């Protein structure tokens, strides 16, 4: 007999803000992996090229950027070969935006399951992030292949040991995207207007991060606000790890990390609190 008089679970009208049940999440880890597997299998069913699309998407995007921003608009790329310059930004940005868009529709897209079975709802957004992490891993291989191609070609590039931190950068990106996605998912479930607004915000946000231009292009007076965007130090550090001897912007990286994990924590708490209530309004 434990303190609850032998009862093992309780359902109440007001579940409280902090009832994140790690043990339960771990119990459902097989489900998490199965969801990831489902998404991987399902996304390449009945496509001829299958997983090759994971490579092709960033390549196409990079090619478009190369034409538009480098050739036509002539935006400098910090003396880095344009294709190499665009790839890290594209990969990190696509990862962020894919994770965010996937997780923000958690309730809307899974209402039919959530209406029938209980499992910790957090499993679903986590599985989306893992699915896109699988994709970004493949894209990183592509990046390294292109990088080696240029390196052997004797281009002006300077690899350094900072590149070992790439997984950390990706982890921070994931935390930031998941945090934002969780918060937004709670509100899009009720106010669908948000979906429309977010499409614009996301597009705007891409140009606020150094995806298609180098951070060095930003005038000094906007520098602080520009670097406070958690994605800016991540993309810039990714580049400098592969292309220059510049030291990492540790201060901004620290802020980026703190912001991202704070948002993630906020997102998890809010999501857990609202996950069941939302079912009545969806």
């Amino acid at each position, binding site marked *: 007999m434990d303190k609850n008089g032998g009862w093992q679970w*309780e359902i109440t009208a007001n579940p409280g803000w902090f009832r994140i049940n790690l043990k339960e999440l771990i119990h459902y880890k097989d489900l998490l992996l199965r969801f990831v597997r489902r998404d991987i299998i399902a996304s390449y069913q009945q496509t001829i090229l299958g997983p090759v699309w994971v490579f092709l998407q960033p390549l196409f995007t990079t090619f478009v950027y190369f034409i538009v921003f480098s050739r036509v608009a002539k935006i400098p790329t910090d003396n880095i070969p344009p294709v190499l310059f665009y790839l890290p930004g594209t990969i990190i940005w696509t990862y962020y935006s894919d994770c965010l868009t996937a997780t923000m529709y958690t309730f809307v897209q899974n209402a039919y399951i959530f209406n029938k079975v209980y499992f910790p709802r957090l499993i679903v957004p986590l599985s989306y992030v893992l699915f896109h992490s699988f994709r970004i891993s493949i894209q990183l291989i592509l990046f390294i292949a292109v990088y080696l191609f240029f390196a052997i070609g004797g281009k002006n590039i300077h690899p350094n040991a900072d590149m070992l931190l790439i997984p950390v950068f990706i982890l921070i990106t994931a935390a930031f995207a998941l945090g934002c996605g969780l918060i937004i998912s709670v509100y899009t479930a009720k106010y669908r207007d948000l979906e429309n607004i977010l499409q614009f915000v996301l597009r705007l946000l891409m140009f606020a991060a150094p995806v298609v231009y180098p951070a060095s292009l930003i005038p000094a007076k906007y520098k602080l606000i520009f670097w406070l965007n958690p994605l800016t130090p991540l993309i810039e550090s990714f580049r400098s790890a592969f292309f220059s001897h510049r030291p990492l912007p540790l201060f901004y990286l620290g802020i980026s990390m703190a912001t991202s994990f704070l948002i993630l924590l906020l997102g998890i708490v809010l999501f857990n609190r609202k996950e069941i209530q939302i079912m009545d309004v969806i």
Partner: protein
Amino acid sequence: MGNTMIRAENISKYYRLGVLGSGTLKEDVKNWWYRKSPESLSTTSLSRDHIWALKNIHFEVGKGEVVGFIGKNGAGKSTLLKIISRITLPTTGRILGKGRIASLLEVGTGFHLELTGKENIYLNGHIMGMKKKEIDRKFDEIVDFSGVERFLDTPVKRYSSGMYVRLAFAVAAHLDPEILIIDEVLAVGDSEFQKKCLGKMKSVSGEEGKTILFVSHNMQALRSLCDRALILEKGEIIASGAPINVITQYLKSGKEQFLGNDYSLDGFLPGNEFIRVQKVELLPEYLDHHEFIDIRTPLRIRFEFWYDVAEPGDLITGIHLFSFAGEFIFDLPSKRYTLEKGLVRGECVIPGNFLNDGSYYISIVFVRNTTIRLFYLESCLSFDVEDFRDNGSWFGKWAGVVRPDFPVVLTPQLNK
């Protein structure tokens, strides 16, 4: 407490009706500003824009008990099961419980059409809370139970609907919870498969001692599976007890039966200058003291009328039985009677084991000299015949309008 697995205390559920639209934000802000929460509303308050789906529900379920919930659509059965399954929150109250719960509000939840049968067994199993090792261990059993082993590597979108349901149910049947919650899933599959599922349910509750909560409209299934039944009406539990008694009460109260009318009480006798009907009655000869009509119940029809025709001639009355769908089932005429003016009583018995289960109504016709229709008393009686089966292995709808009990004899013949 001891053996109690679930205890629900004062459960209520409030739903806001209407479309969530442009007014939603305004209302949310208003509610937030005034700190008005649904809890502050009383369950007795009435309003056009909200509804109490459940009101102050209390109940306990013991270990190994099979409890059935009966009620009309909208009575709150599904809401209650959803609250216990943690899909939606109660507005007030709490539920305490012990042990792992599995909810079958639907079979095959989360099946992905593009994936193969095998992948879907795992996916669905995990969604229902099974771990990989558990599924690995039961995999062969599940496949066996479903009978689709030849198509395990085929995407389920190529399955027939029967195969799909069987695979889905097979996974559900191999869940291993302490508490099982089932909502109307018996209505799936062909009869052979139904038999299999019900057998499985019986063994789960009986031999394995699992606690089962289930909702069904199938009185046969409820009767043979439940230890206890509860009636929900407009969000409240209005009866609880042995299934047979509760089912009887439900059938008596719930249906719009019209088992008779004594017109003399309200002073208006339907008819005309020749015929005035005073009374019609349906008097079922109930069996086992359960006051509802099932297929075994003989039905006595009795009617009284004033006959007021002076000229010589004869009278025939005809009893017309219709199914609720309007099919004319029989026209039962009386003999030709030559009657004096005055009160006449007619009587007839529809034997038991004659009508199939279903809803029926009766009209009575009065005919003079075999051709002149004096009066037609339309749909003066209506009644429902419930199903009854001795052997509880199949609960599908019995086909046909009538259901006679003539013996069919099989005798093995020697081949010479």
